């Protein structure tokens, strides 16, 4: 199961956070800071999976932005690793060439996309068209 999904940049600023298990709000910032510190300490040659407390971190870096996913032992590390990329591809499709700024300024949309892909800590959808369909409907409604 996925425990949390984070987008944090190299400076340690959180761009998106979604917790699938309740974490106290003050503990979240501490956790995020610690997680990004851990990720930054890793070299390119090292495994993209890290044992962290009683769970594992799967991370991928896109330019200055880290996407870090916390999972427990029942989850498939490689699947989550690829899921991160899948998510980025969906964002890229929606925002046509996504940037960190898109994520910052469209926080709600990014969350909605993530919600289509992960439910209750489980990956439920990977098809880009199907993921974006509800959001595109909402956009259309907002326009009219």
């Amino acid at each position: 199961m996925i425990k949390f999904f984070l987008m944090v940049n190299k400076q340690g600023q959180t761009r998106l956070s979604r917790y699938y298990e309740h974490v106290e709000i003050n503990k979240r910032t501490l956790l995020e800071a610690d997680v990004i510190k851990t990720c930054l300490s890793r070299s390119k040659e090292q495994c993209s999976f890290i044992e962290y407390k009683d769970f594992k971190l799967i991370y991928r870096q896109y330019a200055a932005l880290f996407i870090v996913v916390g999972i427990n032992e029942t989850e498939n590390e490689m699947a989550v690793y690829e899921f991160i990329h899948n998510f980025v591809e969906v964002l890229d499709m929606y925002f046509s060439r996504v940037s960190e700024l898109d994520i910052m300024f469209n926080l709600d949309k990014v969350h909605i996309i993530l919600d289509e892909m992960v439910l209750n800590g489980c990956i439920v959808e990977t098809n880009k068209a199907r993921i974006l369909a509800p959001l595109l409907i909402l956009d259309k409604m907002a326009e009219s």
Partner: protein
Amino acid sequence: MSDIVEKTLTALPGLFLQHQAAGGSGVSRVSVSSRLGSLIRSITALTSKHEEEKLIQQELASLKATVSAPGTTLRLMKECMVRLIYCEMLGYESSFGYIHAIKLAQQGNLLEKRVGYLAVSLFLHENHELLLLLVNTVVKDLQSTNLVEVCMALTIVSQIFPREMIPAVLPLIEDKLQHSKTSELTYDVLDESLRRAELSHNITYAILFECVHTIYTIYPKPELLEKAARCIGKFVLSPKINLKYLGLKALTYVIQQDPNLALQHQMTIIECLDHPDPIIKRETLELLYRITNAQNVSVIVQKMLEYLQQSKEEYIIISLVGKIAELAEKYAPDNEWFIQTMNAVFSVGGDVMHPDIPNNFLRLLAEGFDDENEDKQLRLYAVQSYLSLLEIENALYPQRFLQVMSWVLGEYSYLLDKGTPEIVITKLYRLLVNKSTTSETKAWIMGAVTKLMPQAPSSKTVEKLIQEFSVSLDTCMRQHAFELKHLQEKVELMKNLLPIDKSCEDLVVDASLSFLDGFVAEGLDQGAAPYKPHHQRQEEKLSQGKVLNFEPYGLSFSSTMSSSGCTGRQSPAGISLSSDVSGNSAETGQKEINSLKLEGVKKLWGKEGYLPKKENKVGNIPELQPVAQDSTLVENVDQMMIKKDQSQALHHSEEEAEKQRLASTLFVGLGSESAVSLLGKTDTVSHKFRRKSKVSDTKNRELAIAHNINCSSFNPLSNAPYEDDDHLNNFQGKGDTGLKKCSLGSEFLESDLKSESLTELHLVENLSACSLSPPSLFEDNSMEIFHPASPILSSFANEISLTSSLLEELNEHVHSDLVELCNNEILKVSSCKIWKDDCLLLVWLVANKSSLELKSTNLEITPTENFKILEHPGFCFPIIEAESTKSIQHHVHIEKPFTEEGLSGYIKCQVEEDPYIQLDFSVTLSLLDFIRPMKICTEDFGKLWLSFANDVKQNIKVSDSQANLPFVLKTLQQKLRLHIIDIIGNEGILACRLLPSVPCLLHLRAHEGMVALWFRSSCSSLPDYLLYQCQKVMEES
């Protein structure tokens, strides 16, 4: 894709302009004009955390003003929610907005609604009380015809729907699920997946991994297993580190089924064991842990200890230490190795390890094995080992380790030569006065000294100790010192109390302190107040101070285990009856557990549950050696594993040979040719100390609880039909009509009492025994339930014998009398209420009294807002034959609580060609027709209690004859159908539900002619109505 996120913050200002210029594409781009945009920009411009905090607080203040302003549009509200999400993401709580998020989800159009739901899911957690406000919205959206709304509702349900409200949406969701049978296709799918997975893309490996996992999990198919094994090879041998990791993980999964695979990849495993990336190393150790057997245990444990020494991470230490302890207990080759390994475990694991580890270790030592001599050797070795560890100057050991040491020394020092107790006591004394020793450990040490004292009655150290600690500021220590002093004066008592090597024997103690009864009675005679347990005193104090006590049950049911483990006396049971009645004086023989905290600790890890096991103790007589942890233990391994720096200098081939040798030690005993079968690992080993696994125990308990909840929310009377059958037989035995009838007041009682668990019966028995009310509850009840068959009943039986299905229904459920509603020369309409578990069933009997056929008889119920009738409210009998009776049924649900409401209707019929005859009728339904007992346990009660916001409190005066608790409880159980969950002292807790599943809880306390009622429910009006009913029945009784 590498260029996806190239833009960094340093280029921000320029980018804003760019985006402004390029804006307007179909998909919404960065909207600079938005307030979120300006917030983000201002934050980006800041330089310090302090400034950020100031800015966000300003922002929150302005948001607060906006969201609470009455004129705020939903569109603006949506804006605000996104900004609130942003603020919370940065770590600033914005709880004022939560309620508005819910409002937005309730009222907004699609996008607004979605953002409302999103905000709710991000802000709240599953147990947040505000969520109850969302339930109706979710239910509404689930039934929406708009697919997008349904999807939103499904999303939110999976995210944070409150647990106890799940029954409300479950049917709606189940409708939306489609079940498909693909199991028989699994083999083909897996085979196909493996075959097509030639592509070299990451996700292929992820899928392959899952396939392999599945193949080894499902019923094995040899052909597939072979393919899966080849597949694992691809992973393990991959140069890509992520794949290697995955390969190791796959190996870990499958290795127990197929140890040969470990042999195939042994060289890779050896390489990974020294991999620079700790996670690879860690995964390798995990794998080795699974293939451990009696032959390779020392090498593998050594590797684990090496890893432990480098690791600082608490979770890793906890997990590894647990595994080492488990392996040591399972496969220890000899006493010496076992004790030394456990010493290492205690030293490293220290105070973070799971408490089961020291507890199991001590239990193992205490309970021993079949061979008495063997036990002695092990204990003696432990004693000697600890003594030499304590010899070392200035050595600091974790507190848990010291506790283990002191227990063992206290218990088994007698195995040493004569004259040594004094030496041991001196060592313990030194620990006792050490500043770093905690008070818990001191209690253990004191225990040990007390046990040693009979062996050295005139010890000077003990004298000194008593003197010193008699004036200690620590009351616990002072108490111990005084006890010690008294024991020292009475040598005989001391020897009886502290026999040598009897840690496993039961000491008979009178836990209920019955010898104090006389004293208590005397005190009471002289007007002393009866003893009240701590929780009760606390609660009374709180209620006097007019402070809301939010956790009354948390206090009541706090564990009875004393955490310091220094007192042997405990309250005899969780339920404390007031002390003026020591009704259970006979309950002696409480187990004296020697202050070992063996019970009440939960096991957290371990795949098959962590079981203390031990096998194949080699009958070596251990030699006396000082325990420098590593020396002997590592010797073996050191010969093969020369330190890295040395080995680098060695020739390559020598290095290879080295690995080969290590491999042969690691993988010894694996594979089919070996005598030790890994498959049978858990079965072949005889586990002396196998206990019921704590994990499975708790799981069972959880299951039982879950089951309870299930029952209570769906079908609390599920066993009622069976019970009723019994009663039916009883009746028939008495020559009765075979129909069961009971008054409205007592209908559920018999099934309740019958189906009550033994403990509850016991409870009631106890209560009635200790109360002053003379007749037992049961006698009382049976008199009320089994009314003699009345004339109405027999005629009713005649009437309904016509409709066999109805008869069946009636037999299965408790029901009311048949009531005549309207009557003329042609027609008679009567009705009967059947109180089913899930609804109220109204049965209408239409009798044709004339000698002519009735044509197109119409029965029509007038709809009201209070009731929902599942069937069509009208019904037409085309023909009712002369002098016959027809019946119809209506399932009635309640829409909102009320006290009493009429349900009216009319019947219309035609005799031959005469004009229509119409008769009006009405039945009165009471709230009680829709109340059912809710069977939950005390623990669930406590949880529910805290989760309900609506509460009503009231004190009712009762006459003296009613003032005792059993009477009140009995009345409520009989007349209101409340389920008695527990009785504690003069308090009782009860629960019921309003159909279909609105729970209502009642906490009740009887004192001095008053009964204090305290209702809580998830429904706001229900407590008021129930309170009214309670008052009514109390007045009537």
